[in-house]
């Protein structure tokens, strides 16, 4: 039996926290706009793209990926915050399994990502990317799938971090490289072969590629998707399963950290 109430309550709590932390809310909403309209518009002026797709349109799936990335990692790393401020100990002593806790965190990260992605998607028609009902449904699935995989990665990171001080390190050494080496800013096929290797192990690259499948017109050519649809889906499902399983088994060791958190 799936313990729905505990999972639901953990998700609801994350949403409440998200809306009550003004700074986080505002930066989450402003960040994609900055990338899209300032960076995107600027670069559109200086690069020439093949007919049919502007750089701004090409950038849109990438920025959508960025929204999912930040939101998923942030949710996962809130586990570190919870550990430091005690709420995690309350959760750990409740009669729920480690898998339930990890699942609830993954669900929170995914739903928060979906919420922010939905806001961004409202802007798609403004830059000449019309959205049909079919695309919206597809994108919902793709965003959730990407978010689950990335929250899984984040939970794995969170199980290794024991204080919020390492947060900046994660941002610089995990989040930004993940975004820059994702195919969101430039097509993967145009990168040197050595960098392409890094992209192959980056779950965000497959997520953004899925978004390209759903958003960019078929005539996009080099600016279009880099991988086949099925391999994107397969890799993301595999990533999710592995990271969630690993995070769950490492989560058990969290009990050790109970005291560290108390200091």
């Amino acid at each position, binding site marked *: 039996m799936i313990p729905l109430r505990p999972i639901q309550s953990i998700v609801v709590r994350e949403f409440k*926290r998200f809306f009550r932390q003004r700074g986080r809310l505002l930066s989450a909403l402003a960040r994609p706009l900055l990338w899209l309209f300032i960076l995107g518009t600027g670069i559109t002026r200086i690069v020439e793209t093949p007919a049919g797709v502007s750089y701004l349109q090409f950038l849109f799936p990438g920025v959508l990926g960025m929204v999912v990335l930040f939101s998923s990692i942030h949710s996962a790393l809130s586990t570190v915050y919870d550990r430091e401020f*005690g709420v995690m*100990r*309350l*959760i750990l*002593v409740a009669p*729920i399994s480690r898998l339930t806790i990890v699942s609830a965190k993954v669900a929170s990260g995914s739903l928060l990502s979906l919420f922010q992605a939905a806001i961004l998607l409202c802007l798609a028609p403004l830059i000449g990317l019309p959205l049909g009902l079919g695309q919206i449904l597809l994108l919902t699935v793709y965003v959730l799938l990407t978010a689950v995989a990335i929250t899984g990665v984040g939970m794995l990171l969170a199980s290794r971090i024991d204080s919020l001080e390492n947060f900046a390190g994660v941002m610089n050494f995990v989040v930004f490289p993940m975004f820059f080496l994702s195919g969101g800013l430039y097509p993967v096929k145009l990168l040197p072969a050595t960098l392409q290797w890094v992209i192959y192990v980056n779950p965000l690259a497959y997520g953004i590629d899925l978004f390209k499948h759903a958003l960019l017109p078929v005539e996009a050519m080099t600016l279009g998707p880099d991988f086949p649809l099925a391999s994107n889906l397969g890799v993301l499902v595999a990533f999710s399963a592995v990271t969630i399983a690993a995070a769950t088994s490492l989560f058990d060791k969290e009990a050790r950290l*109970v005291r560290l958190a108390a200091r």
Partner: protein
Amino acid sequence: MPAIVTENLVKRFGDLTAVDGLTIEVRPGELFAFLGPNGAGKTTTIHMLCTLLRPTAGSARVAGHDCVKEAWAVRRAIGLVFQESTLDKDLTAYENLWFACCLQNLTSRVATERIAEILRLFELTDRKDHMTKHLSGGLRRRLDIARGVLHRPRILFLDEPTVGLDPQARRQIWQFLDTLRRQEETTLFVTTHYLEEAETCDRVGIIDHGRLIALDTPEELKQVFKGDVVQIRSDRLNELARAIREEFQLSPQVTDRGLLLEVTDGEAFLPMLIRSFGDQIAGINIQRPSLNEVFLHLTGREFKP
């Protein structure tokens, strides 16, 4: 069936032995106080009993279940109020309680009823919609405890529930605990720094450097003292101690609170004392022995929280 049994429970952190061969038994419905100075191993013991830490050696059973192999069953039977607050400061008081009910998988109807009842018992009803971060320390502590008992655990662990509170708030919390015990027959395992709080418990376990050094009712513990404790203030404690030792064949102890003497009949002893050393004494006080004297007797040190 005992509520809590431990056998030779040991927890080591590297070379440090935080809990060293603890064997105790707590009866159902009992109010058990776990007393010890800072770093004695109280919190570590509670965390092992509540399945948050894995014992290095020995075994523990809570509510009849093994704390390692049946951690799940143990968690269903217990409530735990941590030493440091574990409230979510970004939620309201009500939301914190609601969250705890959901973690225990209570239905909405039961949760609503319990929360209303608990808010009333802990006199928090008019604060329920306040943000937790805006509550005073005392109110927050009350909310912490309220949350620990929401799901009516059979065994409730409280790690220093009253630390840092003023005497009135402390009294109030003990009243709540007492009501709880009478209404729900909950077993209470309480750690405390306050000796006078331990005095009111059914039994007291005294722990020092991870070892249990005494375990009995407060009255029995104090039986080692046949008489009264005389406390003497003076400018020249050491000289006076030597003189008293010679004159009366007693063994006074020099402490921060002055000279402590154990005598059979304090009232009869005082005139003799004053006759011999009246000019060296700045003040005298006679008390029935407290747990502090028990601790001093067992360890040779004053009890310092």
